[in-house]
């Protein structure tokens, strides 16, 4: 898979709607570095460490922010809509352990179809699809901690 101009445009759109200023993507030998705005290159002048705790770690030497959940898995096809987690919590795909999942890849959904549950300290919160279509991808694992804004699934919207 290679990056098409359309893909780049899509990624740009994603970056634009996110809270991030820079995005670095590397796949199949293609390296993409994007930066928001026309500001000068973001230079990290190392914040001096407290004298008592010398650290040889300067911010400039660190890797850029790991934005795994938002850009690590690009959509397998164009036009998919994300279902993002509205909360940080534990994600469950089924109403109860042992029961079939709410949805599978291929399941048809309406905007108010429940696609999973997020538990925050024993409080269960339903997550709805928010869009009509068909589940195209399931990214979040059952029982995993998901962060606020993490993409749980992607939907192929009905035309």
């Amino acid at each position, binding site marked *: 898979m290679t990056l098409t101009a359309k893909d780049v445009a899509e990624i740009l759109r994603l970056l634009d709607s996110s*809270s*991030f*200023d820079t995005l670095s993507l590397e796949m199949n030998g293609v390296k993409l570095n994007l930066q928001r705005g026309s*500001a*000068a290159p*973001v*230079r*990290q*002048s*190392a*914040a*001096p*460490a*407290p*004298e*008592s*705790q010398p*650290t040889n*770690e300067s*911010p400039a030497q*660190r*890797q*850029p*922010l*790991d*934005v795994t959940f938002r850009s690590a898995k690009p959509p397998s096809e164009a036009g998919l809509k994300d279902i993002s987690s509205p*909360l*940080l*919590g*534990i994600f469950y795909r089924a109403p109860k352990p042992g029961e079939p999942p709410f949805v599978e890849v291929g399941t048809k959904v309406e905007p108010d179809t429940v696609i999973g549950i997020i*538990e*925050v*300290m024993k*409080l269960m919160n339903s997550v709805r699809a928010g869009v009509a279509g068909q589940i195209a991808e399931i990214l979040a694992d059952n029982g995993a*901690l998901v*962060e*606020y*804004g*993490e993409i749980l699934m992607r939907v192929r919207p009905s035309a």
Partner: protein
Amino acid sequence: MAIRRILIANRGEIALRIIRTCKAFGIETILAASEADLGSLPARLADRAVCIGPARPADSYLKVETIVQAALGVKADAIHPGYGFLSERPALARVCEQEGVIFLGPTAAQIEAVGDKLRARAEAEAAGVPTAPGGAVETASEAMVLGREIGPPLLIKAVGGGGGRGMKRVDRLEDLPSAMELAAAEAGAAFGDTRVYLERFVAHGRHVEVQILGDGTGRVIHLGERDCSVQRRYQKLIEETPAPELSAEFRRRVHHAAVQFTERLSYRSAGTVEFLVDMDRDTFYFLEMNARIQVEHPVTEAVTGIDIVAEQIAIANGDGLRLQQRDVRREGCAIECRINAEDPARGFHPSPGTVRKAEWPAGKGVRVDTHISSGARIPPFYDSLMGKIIVHASDRASALDKMRRALAATHIEGVASNIALHKELLADPEFQRGGVDTSYLPRFLEKRGARQEVRTHG
């Protein structure tokens, strides 16, 4: 058990400060960050950042359940609350206690005991710690009786207030009933608690506070005092240790009072007991206790060489106090200037935005705690603290000199800052003499405003 992974439920310079100590001790850090802070320096320097919610504190940093769920989800052994946000909410400490997550701070019961200002006052009295003449009043007639006894000017304080919030000054006794009614109504709206109490208003007071460490079983040591009298609307601007122009005997009594107060509570972790030094009467009164690490803790670290965050972790780890009182030696003088993204010329209006350039000082005896580097963003949702410059020298004059040079090497572009004001304060003879009271900064600003007025129109 040994703490190996800490969830930091905070942001900004204090999050970075906690990360630094954790790195030094090989402890993993997980930063619980709002969406607005995912690109911040602490988010990059933590071993991992988890997004807990949108930018607004009420949707992220103030959500107790989300914070504890994040700690459980990443299998953190402990939560460090930093200062502000949930640090002094008994609810977070309590849920941690229920869920078996170590809270790097006091117990929920201790936070409650000092969070209620009237109860804290009673605790101080029971511990034999001096309090300002005053007490609880429920009705206007009660207030009049007590007010007459103390004599004006008086201060009406909200029980649920603190840090300067919920206070009203009354200069004439006949104004007391109406002022009390208003204060109770305001307190009800602001803190959900209409209770108020009356205290003597101290005309010339200095804010002197004592850093303590308690092991939770009744052993407490103090790390000396800090003078934080340079403040405006109870927002501290410059802090220093030792407190200038106080006799060794006076300071010893203040230290002792702080230890007495916290020993009685069997206080656990780091805390600060604040006192008001009444300059006219040459005495001091208990003000309140802050049950958390404080912004100005680095000046204490500078003169003692003690890493207070490391001690918090050691205490939470069950290692107890690793130091005896006699091990605590204080050498020289340390001063801290808080560098804020705010404009003193425009009523200290916050100035969020992108920091085009950030240059901080460095060198021997200079420490900078900051999360702001060139290109950093200052979101409008949080406080305006960009960083703290701390200098340490053998005496106060050398420390002031070092701070002047440090400020000259500090450059912030893209947002407004209070650096120029700091430079002016450092050049002011009254501040240089030392021992200013809490009315000093407002007076200084008034004169400064007048001077600028003349410059503009003259």
